[in-house]
């Protein structure tokens, strides 16, 4: 009996403390991890596009959650759904929230899921508020390339491709629900797409013959046609996705995490 009581106590304690820690997380103690300096090889390799050296930087362990973003809009009312300027967030901004600052009670599990349907501008504002910034494409890709710590799947590429092939889940799972990589970063693939600072850095052909590197790019397109390697497929999809975005787009499977220079 005495043991039983102790057990109940322990459970209660654990629950309460977990709550307290979640609170602390919201207050800005979100873990970040260092991604060692490295080289990012852009998918479209051309004579002009050399591998990009990336300096070491720090990146959030997991994507910004709904709970974290609720705190942000509470403290920054201008970013509330009802008040935001359409130039900076389209009509789908935080569409899954019940009100300006809450999720529907039925959606409580989403509190720990990544916030999605947020624009690039909103993500930028959040990062700035945290004293952080969005990672660049090169940084994100370097971090995303990190080796999974516990491989529960054949290869990272297969895992990514499988994710692309599955429709979005009805309810978005919480952060840290997929896999962790060598840097300690969770869910770099398999949960959501993520904004990057320079997402609009991919200069495509809509820019016509005047494009400074047009000739070169004609050839890299040729290279793209000849993708030999499935890794290229996965990268290709991310390029395509980023290329379709505008800064005020708010999309159901697009969130973000923050970075920091060292």
């Amino acid at each position, binding site marked *: 009996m005495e043991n039983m009581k102790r057990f109940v106590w322990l459970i209660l304690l654990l629950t309460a403390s977990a709550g307290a820690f979640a609170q602390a997380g919201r207050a800005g103690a979100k873990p970040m991890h260092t991604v060692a300096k490295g080289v990012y090889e852009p998918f479209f390799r051309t004579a002009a596009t050399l591998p990009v050296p990336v300096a070491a930087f720090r990146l959030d362990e997991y994507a910004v959650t709904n709970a974290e973003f609720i705190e942000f809009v509470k403290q920054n009312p201008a970013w509330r759904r009802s008040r935001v300027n359409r130039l900076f967030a389209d009509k*789908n901004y935080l569409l899954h929230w019940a009100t300006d600052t809450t999720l529907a009670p039925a959606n409580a599990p989403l509190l720990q899921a990544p916030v999605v349907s947020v624009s690039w501008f909103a993500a930028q504002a959040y990062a700035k508020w945290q004293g952080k910034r969005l990672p660049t494409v090169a940084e994100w890709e370097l971090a995303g390339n990190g080796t999974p710590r516990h491989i529960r799947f054949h290869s990272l590429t297969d895992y990514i491709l499988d994710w692309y092939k599955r429709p979005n889940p009805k309810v978005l799972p919480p952060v840290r629900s997929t896999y962790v990589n060598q840097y300690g970063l969770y869910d770099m693939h398999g949960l959501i797409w993520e904004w990057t600072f320079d997402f609009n850095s991919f200069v495509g*052909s809509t820019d016509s013959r005047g494009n400074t590197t047009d000739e070169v790019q004609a050839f890299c397109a040729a290279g793209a046609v000849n993708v030999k390697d499935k890794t290229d497929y996965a990268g290709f999809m991310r390029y395509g996705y980023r290329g379709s975005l505008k800064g005020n787009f708010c999309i159901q499977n697009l969130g973000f995490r923050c970075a920091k220079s060292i």
Partner: protein
Amino acid sequence: MRLPTDFSRARTGLLATALSASVLLFSCQEAGKDKAADTTAVDLNAPLTGTVTAELTDAPLVPKPLTYNTPKKVMVELEVIEKVMKISDDTEYTFWTFGGKVPGKFIRVRVGDLVDFTLKNAPDSKVVHNIDLHAVNGPGGGAEATNVAPGQSANFQFRVLQPGLFVYHCATGPVGMHIANGMYGLILVEPAEGLPKVDREFYLMQGDFYTKGKFEAQGLQPFDEEKAIKEQADYVLFNGRVRSTTGKNALQANVGENVRLFVGNGGPNLVSSFHAIGEIFDKVYMEGGSAVNHNVQTTLIPAGGSSVVEMSLQVPGVLNLVDHSIYRAFNKGAIAQIKVSGAENPAVFKRSK
């Protein structure tokens, strides 16, 4: 077939040169036989005579023949939907579709029309999509103008300059994967005078599919890019499903009727040797263009191409439509059927007792 991303001007230019050369050759051959498709036949300054919303249909149905004979503005809206559907009775697949089915919606317009095209990508889509309509004269067949993120839409307008039956498909990279997942359909551009009247019209589109599991392995089967690269199809299908158009789903027609099939081939890899077992095609609009061939047994339909075939039905029974690369028909699903009802016609065919 356009390149996955569209900064391919240099190559497209070469392709265009090659194409126009072949058009020249073609018109010499065809002189005096059939009216050559001539883009200058469309008067771009002629005023449009109103706006209509295109009737869109799922296979095997075809929109009704057009009743207008002056150019109109035609509104077309397609939504890309990614969804799990049955590829066979016990097998599921995550299809990427134009309008919720494979193949995509059939679009019917008239030469000279101005098409106002809106492509939506469903909010719950995983990836980006676009559309390249082979009926378009313009960058990427529309692909450049329509790279649409989930939940977004894009619009562009194009003037329909040439009659024919054209494939449309998604051209987002990796293109092969988008096509392999079912992202294709047909757009028919009727000539100014319309097509000759027939009793029935149907829509069939062939496609090859590549899955981790073998043909009809149970459960949800993901796309297998290795097999796709090696062109080792597990399924070769009409209208996106094993037995989509057989048995109780067979196309229905009657003895004495004239039937027109609009047949496309989405690929991504395989060329179809389209054949009707126990019939001869009276007319084939070769490759979906203006040249008509007669009395054809089997017609080739390239991946990313089409054919319009017509046949008059003389005897009752079940007509099997197959890809005559025959293992595809019997082992990979490439069979569709027309159930022909009516009285026996012993003058044409008689079984000896």
